[in-house]
């Protein structure tokens, strides 16, 4: 029996710094997705919101906030929080309800309004919160972790800061004509290397910004899509796995890793296990990928993802990049949307935006950034507290 659901509609509110309510962005994205699907809001049986933790109670109950703004329609409602993977957790909730046969039409919405500068922990003294303690005791921001991963790549695999800069140059070029991207400007190697160091070896232009934005998808059962004689893009698998003990890579926001003294580390790192679970669930391997949308919180992290989604062995990412394999026109273009480099992160919307991009690509509707003959695409991300996700889609 097929475990596919149809992505009938996708929609976004452009990323930027608009200074308006996340609800407005979310509703605009939702209406765009509904229009794209040809589905009325009143026909939606289940709405799932990606929670935003920076917008008060309305953000904690994002699902019902969007439902109310669209007009109460009596649908089932849920809200998901899974840090950067919130959007895919929301997609997974909708998908599993559809696959269980409990509904045919679901709407998934994520939207955020984000503060300026570093993402800081919530205020107040919280001596039992690792996210608070890492700032207090170590001064470790998110870029600290990106810097650690980047430096480790350099020392282990011989990556250079020029490789990292080349990722930014590539993604800036990809996002140049993406109307939903916040930054649509060509960037040169020299500009990256002239930007201020934030967390050695990473510079300002190596690290993604935070943005306002929203994305939405309409998911339906395959039966519903076929009744309308549609041949939609399908979600083949969703992975939202936790790490396996002992997790020996230092993940945000932890101050220490698990100890491997009593139990040997798993064969696969947490990041690699995220995509692997999606491949296993779909019975599709990385060799079948036409493109990937990966979570480039930093340029160096994009290189880590090449290995973690199986494009190459550990240490092989720089060569793939240098060969142009991950650029538009290459074997597997990575971040044809421009990635976080061009968007900036809007936490609960970002994973949904990745799915929007892959859907447009698989429809052949991505315009000037279209990947030729795209048939299979994957999205991956990793967030705080052992959250990560991958969504595998095909025509």
């Amino acid at each position: 029996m097929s475990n596919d659901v149809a992505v009938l509609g996708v929609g976004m509110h452009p990323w930027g710094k608009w200074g308006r309510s996340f609800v407005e962005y979310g509703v605009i994205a939702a209406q765009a997705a509904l229009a794209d699907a040809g589905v009325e809001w009143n026909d939606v049986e289940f709405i799932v919101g990606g929670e935003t933790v920076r917008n008060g109670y309305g953000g904690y109950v994002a699902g019902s906030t969007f439902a109310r703004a669209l007009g109460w329609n009596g649908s089932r409602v849920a809200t998901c929080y899974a840090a950067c993977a919130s959007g895919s957790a929301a997609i997974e909730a909708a998908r599993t309800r559809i696959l269980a046969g409990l509904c045919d039409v679901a709407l998934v919405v994520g939207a955020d309004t984000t503060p300026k500068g570093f993402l800081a922990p919530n205020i107040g003294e919280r001596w039992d919160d690792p996210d608070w303690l890492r700032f207090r005791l170590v001064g470790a921001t998110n870029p600290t972790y990106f810097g650690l991963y980047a430096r480790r790549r350099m020392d282990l695999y011989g990556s250079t800061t020029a490789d990292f800069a080349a990722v930014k140059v590539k993604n800036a070029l990809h996002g140049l004509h993406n109307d939903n991207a916040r930054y649509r400007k060509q960037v040169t190697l020299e500009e990256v290397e002239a930007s201020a160091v934030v967390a050695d070896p990473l510079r300002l232009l190596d690290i993604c910004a935070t943005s306002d934005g929203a994305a939405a998808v309409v998911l339906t059962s395959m039966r519903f899509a076929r009744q309308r004689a549609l041949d939609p893009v399908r979600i083949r698998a969703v992975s939202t796995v936790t790490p396996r003990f002992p997790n020996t890579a230092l993940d945000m926001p932890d101050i220490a890793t698990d100890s491997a003294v009593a139990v040997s580390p798993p064969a696969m790192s947490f990041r690699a296990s995220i995509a692997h679970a999606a491949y296993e669930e779909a019975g599709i391997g990385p060799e079948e990928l036409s493109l990937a949308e990966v979570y480039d919180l930093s340029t160096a992290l994009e290189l880590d993802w090449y290995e973690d989604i199986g494009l190459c062995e550990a240490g092989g990412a720089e060569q793939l990049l240098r060969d142009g394999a991950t650029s538009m026109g290459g074997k597997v273009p990575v971040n044809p949307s421009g990635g976080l480099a061009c968007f900036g992160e809007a936490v609960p919307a970002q994973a949904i935006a990745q799915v929007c991009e892959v859907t447009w690509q698989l429809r052949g509707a991505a315009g000037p950034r279209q990947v030729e003959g795209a048939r299979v695409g994957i999205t991956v991300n990793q967030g705080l507290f052992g959250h990560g996700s991958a969504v595998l889609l095909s025509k």
Partner: protein
Amino acid sequence: MSQQIMPAIEGWFTIGEEPALVGQRCTKCGTIVFPPVATFCTNPSCSSREFSSVPLSRTGTVWSCTDAHYQPPPPFIPTTDPFEPFAIAAVELEAERLVVLGQVATGFGPGDLKVGSSVELVLEPLEVRDDTQYVVWKWRPTSEASGS
């Protein structure tokens, strides 16, 4: 100085001549946990909730390092005004087979370290409050590693 010296967080490390991080060792499976705040063993195949307190190795090797060129937001406590960049290292403790994050001792930058460099644990002041100096652990390159 008549100031009393206290750890910036209780129970995570000892102070004195040979300061050390303090971990929990599961009495059933031997798993070590740091920070020592576990109620339950972190090993999914072990349901123990009994731990003994163990000092962790005072030396280790660098898993990776970086620095902070911009002042982190609160609750970070700046120790210099104006802000000066500081280095941060993730350090692998061989015996315990875990990695612990910490600032690098004052005076050293990421250029003084690379993956595999040896470091040792030292204490440095974090803040002074009510006549008490609160200290925090940092990683200091050991002589053979800091030759650059």
